[in-house]
């Protein structure tokens, strides 16, 4: 401990220097504020109530006391102990990230190994989506909880909405990436099929001379692969999931935007929606009343005609 204190670049020396300088600054500030008229020092407050100047001077005085206490060997030892646990937390966090990345890398390696396997015509048996699923799983297990930590204080609700937006954005990104990967599959498969067909034709000496023929072959294959993909349950589920995730992200984003708009003299979207609903219901009521009025009038005139 002694050695550490003597170390001019050690955490304890830095802390001592910083608290000492803060202490000096607070003392100066405290004296300056005490010199202002209206503080307790000059007895300017007739009612005996503490004014803002007095409160500020008291705050500086308190800080000076705290800073002095912090420089005691006991406090410093406690602080040092606290800072020593920080690397431990970081190490845990880093370990979790590394484990996740390692798992992801392994899965991606497996996925990469399956590239170039023979392509079955218009089949989507090998929709290797584990890479995306594993990322989503890791995100949900390891990272999502950071965005769900309950917030404290005056701005807690705003902060929670910002965190929710970041969380929903990440989830949407995962689903969106998976959706795009599915959409890219027909291109991969059509290209592989084309290569195979061209090789077959070349072997038979039946290669077309017109480039249009190649294009037509490719577009037909592509269309076929898309049509097959679009009917698979995997595609339908991913589409529904992506749309759902997009809706949730949009809702979370709108909530944050509404918070931001509160500071401006403009109506929020939810307020406009409420207004529109009121107008809509009012119009319906008026229309109904008009119809009833017309019917009553015609009944009355029919009655008068009878009499």
């Amino acid at each position, binding site marked *: 401990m002694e050695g550490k204190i003597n170390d001019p670049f050690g955490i304890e020396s830095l802390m001592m220097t910083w608290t000492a300088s803060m202490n000096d600054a607070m003392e100066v500030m405290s004296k300056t504020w005490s010199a202002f008229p209206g503080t307790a020092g000059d007895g300017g407050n007739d009612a005996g109530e503490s004014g803002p100047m007095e409160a500020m001077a008291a705050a500086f005085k308190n800080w000076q006391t705290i800073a002095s206490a912090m420089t005691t060997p006991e406090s410093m030892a406690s602080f040092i102990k606290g800072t020593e646990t920080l690397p431990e937390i970081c190490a845990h966090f880093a370990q979790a990230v590394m484990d996740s990345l390692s798992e992801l890398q392994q899965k991606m390696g497996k996925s990469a190994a399956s590239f170039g396997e023979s392509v079955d015509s218009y089949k989507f048996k090998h929709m290797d989506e584990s890479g995306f699923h594993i990322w989503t799983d890791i995100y949900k297990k390891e990272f999502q909880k950071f965005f769900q930590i309950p917030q404290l204080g005056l701005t807690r609700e705003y902060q929670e909405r910002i965190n929710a937006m970041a969380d929903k954005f990440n989830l949407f990104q995962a689903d969106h990436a998976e959706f795009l990967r599915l959409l890219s599959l027909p291109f991969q498969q059509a290209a592989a099929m084309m290569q195979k067909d061209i090789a077959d034709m070349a072997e038979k000496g039946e*290669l077309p001379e017109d480039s249009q023929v190649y294009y037509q072959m490719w*577009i037909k294959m*592509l*269309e076929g692969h898309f*049509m097959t993909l679009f009917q698979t349950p995997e595609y339908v589920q991913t589409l*529904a999931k992506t749309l*759902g995730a997009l809706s949730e992200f949009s*809702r979370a984003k709108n909530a944050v935007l509404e918070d931001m708009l509160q500071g401006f003299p403009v109506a929020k979207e939810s307020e406009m*929606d409420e207004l529109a609903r009121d107008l809509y219901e009012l119009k*319906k009521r008026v229309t109904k009343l008009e119809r009833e009025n017309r019917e009553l009038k015609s009944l009355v005139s029919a009655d008068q005609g009878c009499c």
Partner: protein
Amino acid sequence: MNQFKVPVDLLMSNMAQGVRKARTRARKASEVLLDTLETALSQTPYEVVYQEDRVKLKHYMARKPSGYKTPLLVVYALINRETMLDLQPGRSVVERFLDEGIDLYMIDWGYPKRKDRFQGFDDHINGYMNNVVDFIREKHKVDKINLMGICMGGSFSVMYSALYPEKIKNLVTTVTPTNFNTDKGLLHIWMKSVDVDAVVDTYGNLSGDIMNLGFLLLNPARLMIDKYVGFAEHMDNKNFVENFIRMEKWIFDSPDLPGEVFREFIKECYQQNKLIQSRLEVGGKRVDLKKITMPVINFYGKFDHLVPPEACDQLTRHVGSRDTEDVCLNTGHIGIYVSSKCQDAFAPKIATWLKERDGGPATGDTQAKSGRKSAGPKFKKAKKSLAAAAPSDMEPNRRNRAV
């Protein structure tokens, strides 16, 4: 190792020729694109005779005295715009109807705004549609009018005819989904899994751009690649470019879809298939298809990827009318209205069918009997004229249960 016989020299020579052609085409294309292009849609003159909120009623100027006692109201879908029926002079269903002497009205649903997000089936059918029908009835001093619906507008027309049979003389449905329990169309597969509540609660209306993206994704190879490759190959042809741009203008002119209508259409129709089972309720009233006692003619496209034949061809079996007819055309969803071949057959067929039923008695039952008696010989006549117009494009698949 096999030595492939690749005609590299020929391929290279063709490619060089292709590049030369492309350069010439690009030069001509720049002249075409920089020239004045005629790409305006909906040029047939009309006047707006009724307006309520964003909804307008167009009345087309007659080209000759109307030979019909009953005016025709066309109800288009809320998706895309009714300008599709009047793409350009010479390629216009509207023109064809006017040439036939039909007194023609068409609903323009306008562009729904966020404030319209709460409007559902009830507002469109019991509200706007009913007001428009009453307006026309009053203007023409008639009890009933003819109603023609297109796609989703056809579904609306079916609902309307079931709710107000006393106001509709004849019903024409074209590419109209009524049976949603099919996996032949991708929309039918996809929509079953969509969480429509999440979408509507978040966005309010369904954006036209999102809908268009969805439609493009139904066949990306053709609609996002091949279509534009085709355009690049013909962009030196002014007529082709003008037609292509007209279609582009129409396709991407998509109003947003009111949120509640979208919610109801997906949940009640696509997910629960209530319409064909007469279980749907609109504004608290049950849409009972058995109440559709007026004559019904039902057109659909054999190669329609949006509304497949299986989604359309059950309607005539479920309505209460005895005078019904199914007509399957050898075309897709839009081809019915824009292909020259189909136009030659489609509009005249409707005109003839309406003419045959124009002076019929007013009540549903009597009308059905009348249709039953006269449908046979009259249909033969119509079939003959159709065969002459487009033998391969139309497959009349008449289902007249009275015969």
